[in-house]
Every structure is written in structure tokens, then in C-alpha cells.
């Protein structure tokens, strides 16, 4: 066994792993992120459909109506004339990832 490295490289790597896990969270956190990503996908589908529906007189070109409820909590998405909203578990994460598109869990219909 290489002495010096075993004394320093191993604890250094373990420290980095611990810091990484502390920062990103465990499996529960990852599941939460995945649920939010899926919600966002549903919300985007719904927004695209509503925009299309508002523009096209016959709805045929807009495809089938996407789900209007949260697939995990069954809560209905909030739909208004200007935006569609969902209850995200980490709204600040969604806001950072999607920037100006999303505000307070709401996606603008434009």
C-alpha cells in the first residue's frame, strides 16, 4: 500500500464524497427533483395545448388534451387566461432551471 497517498488521498476523497452528498441530498431529494421535473413536463404540455387551443378554431390540430392534474398528488393544475400553475416541491429549483419562463410555479401562456 502506498503510505502517503493512503493517508491523504483516501480521507480527502471521502471528505469530498460527504460534501457532495450533503450538498445534493440523498435519494429522497433526488426523487423530489424527478417528481418536479415530471410536473414541469406536464405543465409545459398543458400550456402548449392551451396556447394551440386558443389560436386554432377547431381543436383537431392540438392533439389530445393533456392531463390537467398533478400526477402525484392528483391536485388540479391552476389554469387562468394567462398562466398555468402547479405546486412544485422545490419551486426555487424550477425557477432556476427554467428562468423567466416560470414564476412562483406558474408557466405563462404566451
Amino acid at each position, binding site marked *: 500500500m502506498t*503510505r*502517503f497517498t493512503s493517508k491523504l488521498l*483516501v480521507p480527502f476523497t*471521502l471528505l469530498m464524497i460527504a*460534501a*457532495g452528498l450533503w*450538498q445534493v441530498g440523498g435519494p429522497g431529494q433526488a426523487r423530489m427533483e424527478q417528481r418536479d421535473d415530471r410536473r414541469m413536463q406536464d405543465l409545459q404540455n398543458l400550456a402548449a395545448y392551451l396556447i394551440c387551443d386558443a389560436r386554432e378554431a377547431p381543436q383537431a390540430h392540438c392533439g389530445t388534451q393533456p392531463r390537467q392534474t398533478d400526477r402525484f398528488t392528483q391536485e388540479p393544475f391552476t389554469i387562468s387566461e394567462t398562466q398555468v400553475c402547479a405546486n412544485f416541491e422545490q419551486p426555487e*429549483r424550477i425557477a432556476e*432551471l427554467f428562468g423567466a419562463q416560470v414564476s412562483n410555479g406558474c408557466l405563462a401562456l404566451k
Partner: protein
Amino acid sequence: MKPQEQLAAFVQDGLRAGHKADVLRAALLAEGWSQAEVSAALDGWSDHGLGLPVPRPQTQANGQDAVLYGLMFVALLAVTYNLVDLGFDLIAIWLPDPLQDRPYFGATQSMRWSVALLVVALPLFLWLDRRAARALGKDPGQRRAPLRRKFGVLTLFLAALALLGAAVAVVYAGLMGVVTAQFTAKVALVVTIAALVIAWFRDFLEEAG
């Protein structure tokens, strides 16, 4: 007969005829053989006062060595690369640079990959390192394994490249006026990891004798 075989045969014949190694060396150098070639040829034989040159064992790379040291190299590379990658992500979060977007959430997948790779690659590296050390303990002849030395030298080469890259980045950032806390921490991380790898290399080659 290949040139190296010719050289070995000449040295063997010369020693058998009672010529001193220095005389043979001078003759070969005068004919244009390189120092390294002459030394390698002369090192292949020893004189035990028998009046006959005694061949020294020549090492050859074998498949097992190739797998062992190849895997060790890949594992060490995976550990160092992911240490740097994970460290950069953490530094970018902990010491945000106002000129750059805050990467916190976008970096979580990358950090999870790094953690996953480190969790697998570090034990693999340690296991292979211990295995190589055990093999060395059982058979000191392993010290001559050429792949062992090549592996160590390649590791040093890459660590030196990382250090050079860090040095270039420091100069460039200085010229661009972007020597921020984040940047300094990243350079310190690269230097630390490169130093650890060089330290490992030093121990590794000391073991190799």
C-alpha cells in the same frame, strides 16, 4: 539477428573473453551505440568471478500486469477526474461568481455522477493498489515489471499536465482580471489533487525500487 540481439551477443562474447565492462562500453560508444543501449546491454550480464558472464533476469510485460496496472490507471484517473469535477461544482455553489450564473440546481446531476463514480472507483483503486503491493511482497521480481514503471510515469505525466494547465489558467485569469475567490479555490483544488497524485507516484516508484 536484430541489432539489440547483436549487441547482447557482443557483450556476452566480450565478457567471456575477459574484457572489462568499461572497455566494452567505450568500444560500443565509439561505434555509435547510445549510452542507454550500451547500459541496457551491459546491465543484462553480471560477473560473479566465474569467468563466465551470468545473465540477469529480463522482465517482460505479461497479460496479468497489463490488466492490473491498466485497471489501476483507469481507477486513479476516474478518482482524480471526478474529484476535480465534484470539487469545481461545490466551489461554484459555495463561492458564486457574480459574472456567472449560479449553477446550484443544474449541477446536482453532475455531482451525483461524480459521487457515484468515486464510491466505485476509490475502493477499486485501493484494492488494486493493495493487490499490487501484495504481489510485490511475494515476488520482489515484480519490481522490474515494465508496466509498473510505465504506469507510474504516465500518472506523473498527467499530474504534471494538470499542474501546468492550472498555472496557465492562473496567468490567463490574471490577464483577464477575473481572479475571484471561486477561481482561486478551483486552482488550489487542482494543485492539491495533483500533489496527492504526485505523492502517490513517488511512493509507488519507491516501492518499485
